[in-house]
């Protein structure tokens, strides 16, 4: 009996309940492939996509929801991650021969992160809000041009092909995806609970006040931006491996700019599980749409963003807060 009451005592802390729920869900997801045939299974593919989407969504979530900066350049980091993976693999740089080489993946996250730091420092130190968003937009677009132009490295508009003979089964994709999605969510969780998260929150609420309290703002913003890029790169890496054929159209296109935003907006920006929920919804919507209204589903996503922003700007998670007076008005 004692153990039971201790367990309940442990669960009383709401945050702990959430953590337990997340772990349970993860466990269930991990077990699914044991009960289903993995190959050619639509659900496995669907979940895989959801995992990839979760990772890139969490990246945007951290930058927008916690650091309060809207990034319109995530597609550049995503693409960069994919290309990094492809190039490392093609030139066999790490010489491990593993497909899901963790080093390759890590590098695919680190390279965009480095880029994020390089452009983040000048952009974030000078630009506020809207202006920063456009700066990221501009950078993203420039990157696309560079990728297309640097034909001898990136294969131009045609891109890079990864030999597909290595593909053995969907299972590793699935599990790697699950792992990365968990990792991304956990990363956001731990950052928010850390000192960095506290600083970010202070900056988001009232930047001038935070600065006057000695918070050296720039490093936190750049850090958030870099982590956002890191996660986008990871997502790109995984997706790239799955695709086998990486080109600007598939990994650098505008969709990867909008999807993270859409997912966070749907699920709830600035929350820990919101992006995952948003990813689930969005992937479901698109898969469903792809099957039945192939052409129309981008329209649906547009309508969705508008409806959600109009009627529930805090996303699905924010629904419970909807009737509180938390929305601040500018007058």
């Amino acid at each position, binding site marked *: 009996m004692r153990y039971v009451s201790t367990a309940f005592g442990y669960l009383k802390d709401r945050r702990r309940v959430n953590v337990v729920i997340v772990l349970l869900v993860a466990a269930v997801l991990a077990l699914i492939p044991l009960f289903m045939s993995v190959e050619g299974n639509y659900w496995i593919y669907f979940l895989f996509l959801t995992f990839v989407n979760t990772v890139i969504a969490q990246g945007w979530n951290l930058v927008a929801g916690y650091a309060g900066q809207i990034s319109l350049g995530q597609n550049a980091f995503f693409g960069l991650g994919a290309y990094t993976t492809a190039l490392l693999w093609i030139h066999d740089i790490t010489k491990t021969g593993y497909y899901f080489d963790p080093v390759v993946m890590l590098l695919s996250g680190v390279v965009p992160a480095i880029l994020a730091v390089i452009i983040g420092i000048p952009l974030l130190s000078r630009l506020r809000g809207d202006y920063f968003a456009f700066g990221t937009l501009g950078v993203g*677009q420039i990157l696309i041009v560079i990728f297309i132009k640097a034909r001898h490295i990136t294969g131009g508009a045609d891109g890079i092909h990864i030999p597909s003979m290595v593909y053995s089964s969907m299972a590793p994709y699935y599990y790697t995806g699950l792992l990365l999605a968990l990792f991304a969510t956990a990363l956001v969780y731990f950052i928010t609970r850390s000192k960095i998260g506290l600083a970010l929150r202070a900056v988001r609420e009232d930047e001038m006040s935070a600065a006057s309290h000695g918070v050296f703002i720039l490093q936190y913003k750049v850090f958030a931006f870099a982590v956002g890029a890191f996660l986008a790169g990871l997502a790109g890496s995984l997706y790239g491996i799955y695709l086998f054929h990486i080109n600007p159209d598939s990994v650098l296109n505008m969709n990867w700019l909008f999807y993270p935003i859409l997912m966070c907006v749907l699920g709830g920006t600035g929350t820990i599980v919101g992006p995952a929920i948003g990813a689930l919804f969005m992937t479901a919507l698109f898969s469903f749409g792809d099957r039945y209204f192939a052409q129309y589903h981008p329209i649906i996503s547009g309508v969705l963003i508008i409806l959600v922003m109009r009627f529930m700007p805090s996303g699905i998670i924010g629904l419970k807060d909807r009737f509180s007076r938390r929305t601040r008005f500018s007058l």
Partner: protein
Amino acid sequence: MLLQVLVNGVLFGTTYGIAAIGLSLIFGTMRIIFLAQGTFIVFFAYVCFWLFTLLGIDPYLSLVIVIPIALLVGSLLYYGVFKEAAALEDKNISLLLAVGLMYLVENIMLVVWSPDPRSIVTPYTTLVFRPFDIVLPFTRLIALIIALVSALGVYIFLKRTLIGTAVRAASEDMVSTTLMGINPSFVNAIAFAIGIGMAGVAGVALATIFPFDPGYGFIFAIKALIALALGGIGNVGGALLGGIMLGLIENLASYYVGGGWADAISYGVFILVLSFRPQGLFGKALKKA
């Protein structure tokens, strides 16, 4: 040759300028950058195209139809989509609404009108003047004139009408304007409607000059944004000049460096201006609303 390049730049730049004026108005009052501007420009280009193709209405005459429609669409959009979000402190919501709208309209156009490029061909499409060995296509010249006239129209509206004065006041200080008993929503709506109206004008101009397709909208929006950043927020002339400057930069870059790099250079200039002179070359320094 260089002079030709410059002339081309000016001719096309005014279209960017018109788009930028629209953006400037919307930003001035609502403090958001309406990224869907380009998509709406393309939309109205399609309207012009269909008016011509189905009803045989000359593009320039169609302005008489397109402009009122654009103003109406603008008002409806404001009251239907942006009104509540505009009053919130968090401007990101309005920004995301604009992004969603852009996505929506572009994809609707893709589905309904297909991704094929369209262009309008009239008897005067190939008409060209050649003073001093410079090629001056008739359509581009008219586009320039249309742009200047509408810019002038907006300028007169802002300076000489009471509502226009209210819009200028609201761009400066919305709270103060509200304390005069002026309805901020109404002012926003007017500014927004005119912004979309400008998109209508630009759309017609675009339709007569270039082939266009739904995807062009996003690119155009960014160009308009760059033009705005160059010219600065807060005055009509500045936005127009910003557009012309962008036109010049693009054409010069194309001429000397060629191909896709012209775009990258434009973006590069954009980032530079944002970083080092955010108020643009002609705008007043912006207090954060």
